[in-house]
């Protein structure tokens, strides 16, 4: 299947990709990438396998739509007799409920091919219960929510010291996939291979989380569709709906997971904080004092502002969607799915990740300490030589990044810096001129 193809010579799967023919090498994405994963090489903005966390910031900023998120092809559903749609909580906010009710949207989902709809918000309600239990038992505080895969990958690559703080809890998407598959298999007396469960995703990070999950071998999710694509498909069949079906919906505490501070509301601990926006998450982890950090009980951290409604694959304006989701949450206060009863069917193991996500230390300069120290000093010295204006013309996001690339990769030289090159040319010219003068005399 095409979507299994990894990016060129790579160890890690990534959903964020580059359409080379559309890329004009403009350096917009270079500057916005929070992990400095992009380099413009031969006029194309190439993404580093090691550093990319699939947050989607480059997709957001690319002026020519050259960066995109690889999602599953829709026709994939045809391979399954029974198809379940797993709409993310943020999906519930994509439509104006005064004109298009949620039941109408779900009826449309039926029409485009999903016999079953299982709201991820319903799974989030169960995860709320599990988190409560987990918080009571764990000695490791603060707990960092495991829900946003971009943040998890950020921690794995740049903040390995916080890996132990990540909650060993399955995110709602995975819980929704496991439960819905089980339900359909039971109801239809179907084999596992006959049931496909498909996540309707606001982001690229969730695609990666399914293709290459952190904390387990295999994801229970069959495929991931772009929310924008499903939105368009839903809109195009609305006119064919004859009768709107009735669906049961999750309640406030699940729905609200789609926005910043949503998950936080169900973490019943004293000291908690919610951080949104990948750059904000980075500065939070970098600058928070140890004492303050250790004093916290719970951290909700999301790559997108204001939460998942701000994901790159969500079509509706994020602030509008945020208000809609909050209104919906007030309207659907009480869950119609009785999570307090469902939770009794499962033990805690059902909610736990199989294994601890593994850090990928990318900041390391060398495996040998002496060499690493030498390299660090060389990088500092080189950085001093550069003008420090981070112009991006060399293809690196910052002057320091160029210095690092020169020392670590050896592919570039300091003359890739246009200022150093200009100085060199000037020096040569001056020298020639002074030779000329000498001759004339």
């Amino acid at each position: 299947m095409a979507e299994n193809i990894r990016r060129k010579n790579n160890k890690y799967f990534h959903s964020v990709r580059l359409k080379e023919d559309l890329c004009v090498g403009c350096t917009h994405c270079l500057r916005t990438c929070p992990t400095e994963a992009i380099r413009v090489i031969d006029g194309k903005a190439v993404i580093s396998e090691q550093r990319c966390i699939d947050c989607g910031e480059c997709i957001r900023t690319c002026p020519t739509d050259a960066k995109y998120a690889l999602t599953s092809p829709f026709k994939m559903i045809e391979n399954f007799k029974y198809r379940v749609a797993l709409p993310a909580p943020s999906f519930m906010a994509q439509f104006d409920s005064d004109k298009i009710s949620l039941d109408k949207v779900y009826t449309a989902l039926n029409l485009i091919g999903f016999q079953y709809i299982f709201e991820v918000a319903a799974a989030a309600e169960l995860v709320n219960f599990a988190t409560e239990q987990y918080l009571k038992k764990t000695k490791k505080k603060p707990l960092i929510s495991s829900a946003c895969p971009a943040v998890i990958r950020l921690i794995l690559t740049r903040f390995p010291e916080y890996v132990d703080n990540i909650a060993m809890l399955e995110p709602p998407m995975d819980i929704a996939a496991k439960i819905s598959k089980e339900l359909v298999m039971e109801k239809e007396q179907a084999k596992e291979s006959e049931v496909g469960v498909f996540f309707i995703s606001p982001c690229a990070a969730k695609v990666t989380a399914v293709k290459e999950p952190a904390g387990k071998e295999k994801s229970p999710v069959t495929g991931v569709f772009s929310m924008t694509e499903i939105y368009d498909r839903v809109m195009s069949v609305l006119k064919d709906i004859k009768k709107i079906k009735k669906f049961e919906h999750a309640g406030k505490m699940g729905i609200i997971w789609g926005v910043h501070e949503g998950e936080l509301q169900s973490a019943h601990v004293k000291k908690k904080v919610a951080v949104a926006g990948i750059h904000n998450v980075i500065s939070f982890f970098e600058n928070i004092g140890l004492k303050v950090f250790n004093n916290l009980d719970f951290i909700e951290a999301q790559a997108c502002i204001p939460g998942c409604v701000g994901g790159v694959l969500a079509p509706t304006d994020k602030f509008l969607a945020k208000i809609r989701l909050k209104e919906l949450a007030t309207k659907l206060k009480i869950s119609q799915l009785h999570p307090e009863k469902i939770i009794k069917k499962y033990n805690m193991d059902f909610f736990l990740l199989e294994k601890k996500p593994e850090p990928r230390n990318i900041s390391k300069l060398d495996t040998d300490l002496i060499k690493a120290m030498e390299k660090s000093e060389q990088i500092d010295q080189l950085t001093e030589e550069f003008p420090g204006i981070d112009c991006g013309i060399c293809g690196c996001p910052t002057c320091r990044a160029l210095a690092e690339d020169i020392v670590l990769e050896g592919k570039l030289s300091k003359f890739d810096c246009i200022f150093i090159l200009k100085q060199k040319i000037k020096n040569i010219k001056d020298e020639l001129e002074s030779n000329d003068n000498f001759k004339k005399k």
Partner: protein
Amino acid sequence: MDRKYIIEGGNFSEAGFASSDVKKLLKKLGLPTNIIKKVAIAMYEAEINVVAHAYRGEMEFKIVPGQIRVTVQDEGPGIPDVELAFTEGFSTASSKVREMGFGAGMGLPNIKRNTDEISLHTEVEKGTKLSFIINFT
């Protein structure tokens, strides 16, 4: 390899700079996470002590194979009873400092717990010099 930092008494918003800068360096040098944590905790507590209790100070960080050495020298009131200062829960922190969340009397004990060697020289009304070593393999 070494680094030097100036610490200003009373400047709480800048406190923590030295320890987070060193933390970044140690990550790049590829030190094990548990060692980085120890260094960060010990340096942070030492930094805060200068900010909270002294007037000004200088922090020197040095890494050689197998060992990290840190020295913090300050001009300040000094410590009249060193043994007492190392007692968990002992603190002379002002109410202003306590309001900021410090002053639990856990700093020095914490430094001791996270380091392999520690020495403290102090002279009342002059200042304090705290040195510690963290070994790694």
